């Protein structure tokens, strides 16, 4: 009974948070000077026709009304229509979200695949040259802007060697091979920076773990160093890294915006940028809302996973409700 009520309370708090978030987003977005009427009419329009169009489009109605309309629509699964094209916003966002989703997920996955072994190596060999080199490389990886890395990758692998397409995107359903080939470079550029950041966390998590008493215990009962790292180190370090992963997600979305730009991926980022420029506010506010909500939700999920994976936190969660 109490479990249910705690969950309900948490969900309620989460919903309230989202509501406040939506209000903030709406305010910020609607404070943007300039509006879509100007975009539609272009540089050859005159001021009076812009004003006329504003009225026609209802842009001069009071903001609380527009907010309620938007949030009401969102709750019923309808985010309104693009002010520019008149397409339903969600229909517009859907396919883009898939692209960004692939990019972020694969980028994160690749980053983890790179970062975990490298981070472990950097931690275990931190007093040796190779460990220092790994750590140094990760520092360097963090210092290079992602778009620069992306551009260099394009020059080498797409333009010089012609191994991979320079940019663009093919839908998975249309052509899986092409889809994969188009995603390689963007995912790699995103992962380079992300993994560099992760390596640091993995490294320090492992250094922490190696200094823990239980690690010494593990060795004292007869585990070899390497086995102790795998049996006891990985478990505990991954718990630490897991919490970081959730937080990294926000930065990953940002990284995705830039990477989408470099590789002309039709993702949320490029849609957001152009919508901001053109003040297609229904699109902008919905994208921002989706991104923030996604980050919050995924953080919540990561938190939950961390709780389930860590018996201490798990006990906390169940006992709080029991």
């Amino acid at each position, binding site marked *: 009974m109490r479990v249910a009520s705690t969950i309900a309370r948490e969900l309620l708090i989460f919903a309230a948070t989202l509501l406040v978030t939506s209000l903030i987003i709406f305010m910020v977005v609607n404070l943007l000077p300039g509006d879509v009427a100007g975009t*539609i009419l272009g540089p050859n329009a005159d001021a009076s026709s812009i004003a006329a169009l504003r009225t026609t489009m209802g842009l001069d109605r009071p903001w609380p009304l527009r907010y309620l309309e938007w949030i009401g629509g969102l709750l019923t699964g309808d985010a309104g229509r693009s002010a520019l094209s008149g397409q339903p916003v969600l229909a517009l966002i859907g396919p883009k979200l898939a692209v960004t989703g692939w990019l972020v997920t694969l980028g994160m996955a690749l980053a983890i695949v790179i970062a975990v072994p490298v981070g472990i190596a950097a931690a275990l060999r931190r007093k040796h040259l190779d460990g220092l080199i790994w750590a140094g490389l990760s520092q360097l990886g963090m210092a290079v802007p992602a778009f620069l890395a992306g551009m260099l990758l394009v020059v080498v692998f797409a333009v010089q060697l012609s191994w991979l397409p320079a940019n663009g995107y093919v839908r998975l359903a249309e052509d899986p091979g092409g889809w994969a080939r188009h995603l390689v470079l963007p995912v790699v550029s995103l992962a380079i920076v992300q993994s560099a950041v992760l390596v640091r966390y993995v490294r320090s998590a492992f250094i922490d773990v190696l200094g823990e008493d239980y690690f010494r215990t593990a060795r004292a009962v007869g585990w070899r160093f390497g086995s102790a790292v795998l049996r006891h180190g990985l478990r505990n370090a991954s718990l630490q890294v897991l919490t970081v992963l959730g937080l990294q997600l926000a930065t990953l979305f940002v990284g995705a915006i830039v990477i989408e730009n470099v590789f002309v991926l*039709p993702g949320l980022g490029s*849609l957001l940028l152009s919508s901001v420029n053109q003040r297609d506010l229904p699109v902008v506010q919905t994208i921002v809302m989706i991104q923030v909500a996604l980050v919050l939700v995924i953080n919540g999920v990561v938190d939950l996973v961390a709780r389930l994976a860590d018996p201490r936190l798990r006990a906390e969660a169940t006992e709080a409700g029991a």
Partner: protein
Amino acid sequence: SSKDGGSGSQAQVHDLVVGATAAPDALDPSTNTAAAISQALLYNVYETLLKVDGKGAYQPLLAKSWTESPDGLSYTFTLEPNARFASGAALDASAVKTSLDRIGQDPTTLATLKSQLAAIDRVETPDPGTLVLRLKHPDNFLLYFLAQTAGIVYEPSALSTLNQKPAGSGPFVFSAWSQGESLSLVRNASYWGTPTKFDKATFKYYADPNAENAALSSGDLDIISNVQAPQALGQFKDTSRFTILDGTTMSEVVMGFNHSRPVFGDIRVRRAINYAINRPELLQTVADGHGRLIGSMVPPTDPWYEDLSNTYSFDPDKARSLLAEAGHSSGLTLALRVPTLPYATAAATFVTSALKDVGITVTVDQLDFPARWIDEVMTKGNYDMTIIGHAEGRDIVKWADPQYYWHYDNPAFQKLIQQAQTGPADEVNGIMKKAAEMLATDAAADFLYLLANLVVIRADLSGVAENLTSDSFDLTTISSKDF
């Protein structure tokens, strides 16, 4: 790119992929100003009664022929009898009337288009094959605008969904659109005229010019419709793979002055700025030398073009003395507010340095384009100088509108434009020349240069127009050596 539609025995699918920079955000060119809509759809999906060729002459399209009454107050068009919409519906005089009346009467259509067709009093359809336009007053520019976006003939039954699903009579039909990403057309199998060779044509949009170039290099594109980074043209110098077309557009890059500011009421200041800027060098650094120096608001493809680029040749000393005369010897500070467009920001860099040499301090800031720039500069007039390309055809007439963002109010100029529009047709060129000269000598703005029409195409393709004379990227004339 041409892909085999399977193993050898099957027919090849010929498909054309065109890279473009600005992506359309809506698809109805009559309600949204974005040139990108017409770029993809005009002449390809949509057709007009007539068309302007590369030399500025009118060619028949949906109208087989036309006549003008001697008083200039009515035009009679004989329509192409075979013409029909892609849906199969008949394209007759009443369909044309619906489209033209919509521009004039529907409140949602663009004011610019309305003003272009403002001379039309009423449209008559004596029989399905004949269309008569009755004018309020003679208009020498009307045929030109009828050949452009304003004159598009839309399928009457599809008017309400044009923003999502264009419907016209061209050799291509609209197939799919992914906002910001691509727009694809497929061959209109039942086209009434000469069909296209291509089964499919796709416009792909690139916000980043480098990405666009890279895509052509790596074979993802067949054509770049307009190279945004001329500096990178070197990539395509291999003539066995690519052909580079370097023609003209209609887009005058204008450094506009805000004439409502007292400082620009003084012609000496305007002249000084014109003298201070070395436009040949500017063209070289900003556009790698591609483009034209024009000196006024007329592209070379207009019949009344003359080269006015030497009206104010680079002369910084003269600029300084003019400024001193105008009382700015102790210095002058001006706000240059440019849109976030590559050529505009690059030109701003050059201009800032050049004006600094003659004692004008320029503070540059960049405004989001389009929304923010339009709001600040056009609507609010909150600027001293700005730089933007005016791509619309015959936009010199804008200088006759004192409400327009330059706030240039020159009655003599306004009178000339009025005369050119409504006077005898054979005097138009002469009057327009005078008007263009007047703008130039009055230093109404600094007409920096005309954007080049830099098109890179795969070497086997041909038929792409060198000079751009409309908003359209006309696919109908393109063909390949290989098929």
